[in-house]
């Protein structure tokens, strides 16, 4: 539409900071909440809005020590008193929620919502308060403060909570030992430049409602617009990582440490240092792994079409097929989250404690972005004609799928890949803009009453 500017001016004073800024947080707390009374839910929200950082107030050099984010399920919006008419204008996938769409998302078998923890599959789940903190001490202080606040309000209960901490404070790594946070989409209008080998900046409408997207239009939004503008959808996933099982598997696959590391790299598509196999196919190159200017500067179509470096079924090649998939600029998502549980020492046996990654994936369309990734890239056994494979880390594995590692003269096929992760919970949330939070807290008539027909 010609009246829209080509590059959107982001309303950074209205967008919650969560997807715009990666804060220097080393600890976090997720509190999953239920509102027993609308009035209580609105009172809880009203008292917290001023603590929610915006894209304008929170930069990556933020002097703050804690950052608050608030998001709601569809049931949560209803519990706050939002009327049926606006509620029905939300997309079907959000209205149904992640648990109801388990088959589509691929959370079946051991990953099925029947086994989820923390009442995340329950219709009573209404909201999540995400607290990112500079350190554990600050997180604990904020937790206590929120507890006191909840007891003053009453009728807002914590269904469950999760503490997160960086397990390698010096660098972002997850429990299997891989370096994390190596790629992220750059949003047009933020001024950030895309690193070499990455897609050019992505239109804001791929992440925030109310802006032009990569399809060249401004998609229809839930109504009234003031409720949805500057909002995003979040898909939450809690992945338990079976570190002991993963290490046992590597030991079975390789006699020497080098052989084991190569298998670990083939499953991921990167060495644990972060160095990509396409650029470092034979041996690890830790300096490349940490060099964010170089570590994404590769493609698959020209540099590794048959997967001799990075297997076609490797995690990073499935989750970001780069030049070997169409419309990649329409598949981008922003991930926020971290690790939970304690680090299992290198030589320690499996201790049975739960540890993993719990993250929110932000986008403008759950069905087009998140569900596509889960349904096709992660869990489709036929992805790229592989035939019987799923993503080795985030796919639903039950010992019946394989992993092919192309190799000359004969490829290596790992039959019956074990499950290295289990999904312990998930949910869909709407992350409103600040103005919308205020309307929700106020029980604004535009939201809680049926709009009158104009004759």
């Amino acid at each position, binding site marked *: 539409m010609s009246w829209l500017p080509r590059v959107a001016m982001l309303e950074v004073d209205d967008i919650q900071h969560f997807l715009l800024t990666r804060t220097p947080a080393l600890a976090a707390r997720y509190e999953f909440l239920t509102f027993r009374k609308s009035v209580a839910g609105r009172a809880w929200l009203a008292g917290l809005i001023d603590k929610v950082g915006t894209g304008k107030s929170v930069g990556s050099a933020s002097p703050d020590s804690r950052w608050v984010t608030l998001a709601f399920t569809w049931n949560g919006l209803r519990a706050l008193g939002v009327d049926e008419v606006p509620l029905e204008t939300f*997309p*079907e*996938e959000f209205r149904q929620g992640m648990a109801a*769409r388990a*088959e*589509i998302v691929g959370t079946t078998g051991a990953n099925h919502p029947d086994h989820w923890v923390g009442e995340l599959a329950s219709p009573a789940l209404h909201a999540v308060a995400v607290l990112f903190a500079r350190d554990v001490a600050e997180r604990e202080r904020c937790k206590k403060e929120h507890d006191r606040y909840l007891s003053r309000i009453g009728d807002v209960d914590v269904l469950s909570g999760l503490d997160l901490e960086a397990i390698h404070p010096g660098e972002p790594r997850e429990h299997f030992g891989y370096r994390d946070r190596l790629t992220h989409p750059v949003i047009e209008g933020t001024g950030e430049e895309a690193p070499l080998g990455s897609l050019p900046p992505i239109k804001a409408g791929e992440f925030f409602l109310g802006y032009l997207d990569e*399809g060249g*239009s*401004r*998609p*229809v939004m839930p109504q009234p617009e003031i409720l949805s503008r500057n909002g995003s959808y979040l898909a939450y996933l809690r992945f338990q990582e079976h570190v002991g099982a993963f290490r046992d598997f590597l030991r079975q696959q390789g006699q020497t440490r080098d052989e084991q590391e190569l298998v670990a790299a083939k499953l991921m598509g990167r060495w644990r240092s972060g160095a990509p196999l396409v650029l470092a196919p034979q041996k690890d190159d830790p300096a490349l792994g940490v060099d964010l200017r170089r570590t994404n500067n590769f493609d698959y179509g020209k540099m590794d079409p048959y997967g001799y470096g990075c297997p076609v079924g490797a995690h990073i090649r499935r989750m970001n097929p780069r030049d070997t998939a*169409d*419309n990649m600029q*329409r598949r981008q998502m922003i991930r926020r989250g971290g690790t939970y549980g304690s680090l299992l020492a290198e030589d320690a046996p499996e201790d049975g404690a739960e540890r993993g990654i719990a993250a929110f994936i932000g986008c403008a369309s759950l*069905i*087009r972005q998140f*569900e*596509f990734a889960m*349904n*096709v890239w992660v869990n*489709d056994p*036929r992805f790229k*004609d592989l035939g019987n494979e799923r993503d080795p880390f985030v796919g639903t594995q039950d010992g019946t799928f394989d992993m092919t590692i192309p190799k000359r003269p004969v490829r290596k096929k790992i039959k019956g890949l074990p499950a290295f992760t289990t999904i312990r919970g998930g949910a869909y949330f709407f992350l409103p803009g600040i103005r919308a939070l205020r309307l929700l807290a106020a029980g604004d008539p535009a939201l809680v009453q049926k709009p009158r027909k104009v004759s």
Partner: protein
Amino acid sequence: MVTHVIPKEPLEPQVVETASETDWTKPQAMAIPKEGYFKVEQGRYGPLFPRTPACHGFTIIAKIKPGTEEEIRQYGKKLENALAGDPYVLAPLQLHYLRWVLFAIGQDKYFMYQGIFDTDFDKYTEDAVALFTQTGINTIFEKLEGFPSDWRTNVPAFIKFLREHQCPSFLEYGEYPYVTAVEIKKALKLKRAFSDMLDQMQ
């Protein structure tokens, strides 16, 4: 050069329940239940339609708005020219064939759009819709009754229209079942390479 044994009698096409997807030498047919699928397997926009010996595909049938037949026919030339300009414009769909038909039932005119391809349309629906838009096929869809007027900003409504007007086959047949367009092109490339090699050896 004979690469496989040619049977003396033509093979009877078989109606199979669990088709072998690897033996391209045996023609196969698949009878499909009324719903269009054997078991409900939920895709993002509704139940998934199965791959058959005749690959993936769709048949979309819809009534056209009165008086738009000529405009629709003219689109044929437009797409022909688009393909001449960029032969790979439809490549993402991994197509075998597309067929476009206009026909009458009584006084009413109908449009049929049939595609046979290797991509799982249900999984890559948005890519297909993006291509429809790129190649201007939306200009035909706009002439169809019931097509959502806000399709430009409402992809789910576009997809809903496609699914509502999709008529699943009750029988599909493949002379060389489950063979993909990529495999056919590879075989033809190989044949050409062999011919070149034999020429060079003269």
